[in-house]
């Protein structure tokens, strides 16, 4: 056969055509990539800048106001990077938690028959979704910094906590050795709960008898440790912040940069989550609820056993991308000087060392890992709640 004919046949065949296109695309992308890498290296070398990560071991020489681990200006750039990573993780994780709680509540309110609650939630969602997140961040930050008092005129909360425009100063818990007992009880509570849930499910399957699993778990995880805490004499003491000179010292502080970023990211993402939750719940046919009620299952259990499990299947995939958005939007921290990954390794370190390429590669890899980690965790969860076919 004439090769021309077979080539055009290859092209006409849907399957082989798609293979050809994909191969071409991969070759092109890699070619472009190789060209750019080469170009970058040649250009960097032309101005005498090698490619090396040695600078990470040098002292950073700058201070960072919020560090979850020990850090001084004598620490290395590597440690400054760790400080940045932890700050990003802190705001991303707390943001995801708050956004989820708020988002689910708003989503449920949107379905409420109470017109006022419903409309308020609606207005909130529409407003928040249509204003860029950066503006939310600047707005919240502006409000905190401009309306709260300076430390000397701090708003005292029972003389143990203080509200200022430099942050929220709280008593800092100092754990004494005996506290390990409480920690032990807490862990034991969790282990017990895991076992007990299985046991209770088993009994229910066999006998139909129903234990109050929730209350027993709560008692095991929180109740017992809580009571024992007082029985062994409260092995935590508190360091109360006190005004010394310009600022409060001692205690813990939640800085306005963190608060603003956390609140703004959560409020913003919550609006999207609310819509996802609403859509998820609506997607469960009302017939299901009716059927469940007809079987004599009460409202609470209908919601828990029939509606929510099915809604979750619709909710979780888009929820994952909201979590990813939140994590990535946290890089807007730079606008208000919150010291995250971008501000530390991708900002000050980059600028002071002139290692743009190396620093940006690190920053990209960090965000990539964070995103993959979130996707991974959500996929595991997604698998667990997937429709089980029997």
């Amino acid at each position, binding site marked *: 056969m004439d090769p021309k004919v077979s080539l055009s046949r290859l092209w006409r065949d849907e399957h082989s055509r798609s293979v050809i296109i994909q191969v071409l695309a991969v070759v092109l992308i890699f070619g472009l990539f190789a060209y750019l890498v080469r170009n970058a290296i040649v250009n960097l070398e*032309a101005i005498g*800048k090698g490619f090396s990560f040695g600078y990470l071991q040098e002292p950073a020489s700058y201070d*960072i106001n919020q560090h979850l681990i020990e850090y001084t200006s004598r620490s290395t750039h590597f440690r400054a990077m760790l400080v940045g990573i932890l700050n990003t993780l802190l705001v991303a994780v707390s943001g995801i938690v708050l956004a989820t709680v708020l988002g689910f509540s708003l989503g449920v309110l949107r379905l409420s028959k109470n017109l006022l609650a419903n409309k308020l939630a609606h207005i909130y969602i529409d407003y928040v979704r249509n204003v860029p997140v950066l503006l939310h961040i600047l707005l919240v930050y502006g409000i905190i910094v401009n309306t709260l008092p300076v430390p000397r005129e701090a708003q005292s909360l029972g003389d143990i906590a203080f509200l200022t425009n430099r942050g929220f100063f709280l008593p800092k818990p100092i754990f004494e050795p005996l506290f390990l007992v409480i920690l032990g009880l807490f862990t034991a509570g969790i282990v017990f709960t895991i076992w007990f849930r299985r046991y209770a499910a088993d009994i229910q399957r066999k006998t139909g008898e129903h234990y109050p699993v929730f209350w027993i778990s709560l008692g095991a995880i929180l109740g017992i440790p809580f009571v024992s805490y007082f029985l062994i004499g409260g092995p935590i003491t508190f360091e109360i912040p006190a005004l010394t000179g310009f600022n409060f010292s001692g205690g813990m502080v939640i800085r306005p940069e963190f608060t603003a970023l956390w609140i703004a990211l959560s409020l913003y993402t919550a609006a999207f989550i609310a819509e996802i939750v609403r859509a998820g719940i609506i997607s469960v046919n009302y017939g299901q609820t009716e059927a469940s009620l007809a079987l004599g299952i009460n409202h609470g259990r209908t919601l828990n056993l029939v509606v929510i499990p099915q809604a979750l299947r619709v909710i979780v995939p888009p929820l994952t991308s909201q979590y990813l958005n939140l994590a990535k939007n946290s890089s807007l921290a730079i606008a208000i000087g919150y010291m995250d990954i971008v501000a530390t390794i991708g900002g000050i370190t980059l*600028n002071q060392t002139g290692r743009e390429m190396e620093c940006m590669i690190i920053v990209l890899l960090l965000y990539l890992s964070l995103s993959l980690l979130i*996707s991974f965790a959500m996929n595991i969860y997604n698998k667990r709640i997937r429709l089980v076919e029997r």
Partner: protein
Amino acid sequence: MFDSVLKFKRPYSKEVLGMRVTNFLVIIAVLFSFTVMADAGTLENVKARGKLNCIVSSGLAGFASPDEKGNWQGFDVDFCRAVAAAVLGSGDKVKFVPTTNKTRFTQLNAGEGDILFRNTTETLSRDADLKLTFLPVNYYDGQGFLIRKSLGVTSATQLAGASVCIQTGTTTELNLADYFRANKMKYEPVNTETNEESIVAYESKRCDVYTTDASALASTRAALKKPSEHVILPEIISKEPLGGAVRHGDDRWADIGKWVVNALIIAEEMGITQKNIKELAKKPGNNPGMNRFLGTEGSMGEMLGLDKKWAVNAISAVGNYGEIFERHLGPKTPLALERGLNASWKAGGILYAAPIR
């Protein structure tokens, strides 16, 4: 077509992953492409373009800021104009590239500017590691502290525990860390990207003190609502020799920048001003040094690869160093800075330019 959509299975995670990977590749590509630079000499590029791209600050009154009409004004701006005039014959052939402290060197090295005049301190690491060639110092500065009078602080040694506003990517933040460490004091750094943001933070009392180069503090103080309620503390905690800079690797271009700055300083020493230069340049006088400067004798301009009248053009455009200083920073301006160290060596300062010969 539709068939493949309909039959599409939903491996959610892989799709998301695939998208992330492509996004990542695109970002990398953009990152790399920004290091793609033109390779001809900077002088040729500037001449071919007919415009000098000059990196300045994003707005610091007195040094570089656009006026109501959008024309850039200031001390640093005039140095840009002088270079443009020397190279292209007109001080207006400049495109100003505003940058933050953080982006200035990256932008210079990526070729987005030909030269930088941006309150920039010459340091060893910036020279050797960031690969900048510094031009002669055009302003001898040092880091100071601005604080509200009402706080009753009279010396920087009383600042223990204060919240201090700084801009990231500066020598300022490094000096500050060293100073407080050496004096065994604690402080809370409040980071901002620009002078503008620092002022906002300072005014809202997010920080007690604002620290940066003393010249910039004078500019900032003048821009505050009630300047008289704020003081600049007496301590100067660092040396900040501010100067222009170009990329490593183009010596001819660095020479041009260097000698334009020197020419502005020398013009003041010789008493050559924007006013009298036309007259002086008409014909050679009997001062050979002056003649060389004015291009009526010798071939100084040609040696630099420029026109004979390079220095005349520069001075005609912006005047000599003293005139530039008076216009933007001197006692008649809101900044009201004294010449101090920045007076000519003949007048008790340390401004001392190598001779044109």
